[in-house]
């Protein structure tokens, strides 16, 4: 399936400086009941955006002008908890193209990559620098260059290389996903099955 290609993204940093943001915060379980992949963005961070009466919580960043951007910056261990891909769908559907954190939960990372949403893991130092910068300038702009595997704070010029395996980099740049690759290997999978059956 063709996805949006990802090369360079520049945007204001939308900062939620909380650690351990779990998938139940990203998209509460009660919103997982639709059977399509679309529309989850409207319930992204629902319980932080709306109070129990459904009224907007005005000072939550996504309800302010500072929430307009395509790069989400969040605290460490982002996406921990359930395997629900709805979390990645919700973030992407809301309009984010990348999430920047000092660490990601494993399943969330895979889910994000499988949906063209780039998880950018930076050092704790660089992460603090972004957050500190955005405290004094709420229009802090980040540039993520996937070709160079580099993230830059445009105002300060600070930059850092990030890691992503080359295969995944290629997939994102070209808009491919794993399933295309796996399907091209069906013959070998069948050979493996025969080999394994005979060796047991």
């Amino acid at each position, binding site marked *: 399936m063709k996805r949006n290609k990802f090369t360079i993204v520049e945007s204001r940093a939308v900062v939620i400086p909380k650690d351990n943001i779990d998938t139940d915060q990203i998209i509460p379980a009660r919103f997982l009941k639709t059977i399509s992949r679309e529309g989850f963005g409207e319930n992204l961070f629902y319980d932080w955006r709306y109070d129990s009466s459904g009224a907007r919580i005005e000072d939550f960043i996504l309800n302010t002008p500072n929430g307009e951007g395509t790069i989400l910056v969040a605290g460490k261990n982002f996406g921990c908890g359930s395997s629900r891909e709805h979390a990645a769908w919700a973030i992407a559907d809301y309009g984010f193209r990348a999430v920047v954190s000092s660490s990601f939960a494993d399943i969330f990372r895979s889910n994000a990559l499988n949906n063209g949403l780039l998880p950018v893991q930076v050092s704790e130092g660089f992460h603090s620098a972004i957050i500190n910068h955005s405290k004094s300038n709420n229009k802090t702009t980040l540039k993520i260059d996937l070709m160079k595997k580099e993230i830059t704070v445009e105002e300060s010029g600070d930059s850092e290389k990030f890691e992503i395996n080359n295969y995944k980099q290629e997939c994102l740049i070209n808009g491919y996903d794993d399933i295309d690759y796996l399907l091209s290997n069906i013959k070998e*999978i069948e050979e493996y*099955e025969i080999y394994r059956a005979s060796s047991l």
Partner: protein
Amino acid sequence: MKTLFDKIWESHIVKEIPGGQSTLPGGQSILPGGQSILPGVPSILYIDRHFIHEVTSPQAFTGLRNRGRKVFRPSQTFATCDHNVPTREQDRPIEDPLSRIPIEQLAANTKEHGITYFPLGDPSNGVVHIIGPELGITQPGMTIVCGDSHTSTHGAFGSIAFGIGTSEVEMVLATQTLLQSKPKQMLIKVDGELSNGVCAKDIILHIISRLGTSAGTGHFIEFAGSTIKGLSMEGRMTICNMSIEMGARGGLIAPDQKTLDYVKGREYSPKGELWESSVKRWLELRSDAGALFNTVVEIDAAAIEPMITWGTNPGMGMVVHGKIPPAGSQVAEKSAVDMVGAEKSAVDMVMAGKALDYMGFKWGEQLLGHPVDYIFLGSCTNGRIEDFRDFAGLVKGRQKAPGVTAWLVPGSKRVERQIEEEGLGKILREAGFVVRQPGCSACLGMNEDKVPEGKYCISTTNRNFEGRQGPGARTILAGPLVAAASAITGVITDPRELVHATDSDNATGSDNTTGSENTYNSKSANTK
């Protein structure tokens, strides 16, 4: 020198891409279509067993349909509905259309693709991670995946089992494989005798509160040591179940005689000659002496006490009689007297402060004696027969506190039947409890079983995240014994206060899972 994980992993590699050729047949290193080799490609890992449920599979089938693909190996995928299901009147149509539609979709998808499905009311229906082992679908040495993070549960049988996202569900449906990079490995050794009143849940809550919720990120964990060996299969499943709560992809335990005794004779387990050859192969599945792990952690079982959580992630835990650290203290440096959290707690003060606000607790507060509103016994963590034996053993001859709402939800239809066969249902009813019908229920509140805003729930589940059990719900994670004791008193209670009062008439530590000669015991984790 290989680890248990290495052995299973290596035997499931279809193709290893970068820098080398696979040693298995068809090990070309050129991608089809004449593309060049992409360095850093993970391995193609073959998947033996795939479980699906109604919440994370519909979009995978849609994806398959959009590509015009069929399910590649339908006999290796098994389906159940569990997340959305009501826990009462399951024979009636589900009223909430939002819950009903994904279940109808699952029925249609499995029928279309020839996948075995255990629908609501089926004698084999239940929570996916409970029924896999019960049916013998889960076996040692296998690779097992499901679109659910608690797939790690199946690792208790000595298998590589991990949760996946929906795109990956589609990959497994289409190809019976996944692209995976080999994770790092951690060994957690638990040795020594467990104290009375301490169960498997306390072991894993103890471990997570010591190491933090991200200590396992990027790792698979092998649990070993005499205490782990001493646990029943149910207890081992509870441990592996929560390895995801420390960030690990999965946990696993080497198979032994207990594993074989559990698997033998179940509906889908190998029979006859195939059983004999399987047993031989399975008993070889263990880490070689001297095999290397990236991290090794040693835990003294004697130091483990009944645990509860006080915050909003599973790492924010303490012994049941402990105190939340005082304001201004460095949580991470707090000595192990009250908090089990000396070495490397991931808890920091800002987060802890927010968690306390949410929970309505105070710095330095002792929670013993704090009123509770709800008790939930169930889930893939503690919804097995042993958990009901523990719970019933403690409440026997007592009465549920009047102000407490208790939801006792078996993990499967089989557990539901066993509860009655073993006489536990009678004990529970006499003590004022109702046993409901199986499902994930209040673990994540996708059905009607939601804890109201601001209410406290002692929950035998795996996550105390904000809003997990319902918007504003305040979850205190604990094992079945703490839940039972607190259900009787209506306040957070150390089960040892009640265990000591009644202990002598309880059966001791059998871990036979199917024998009806078992009644119950309050220390089944503490097997001899």
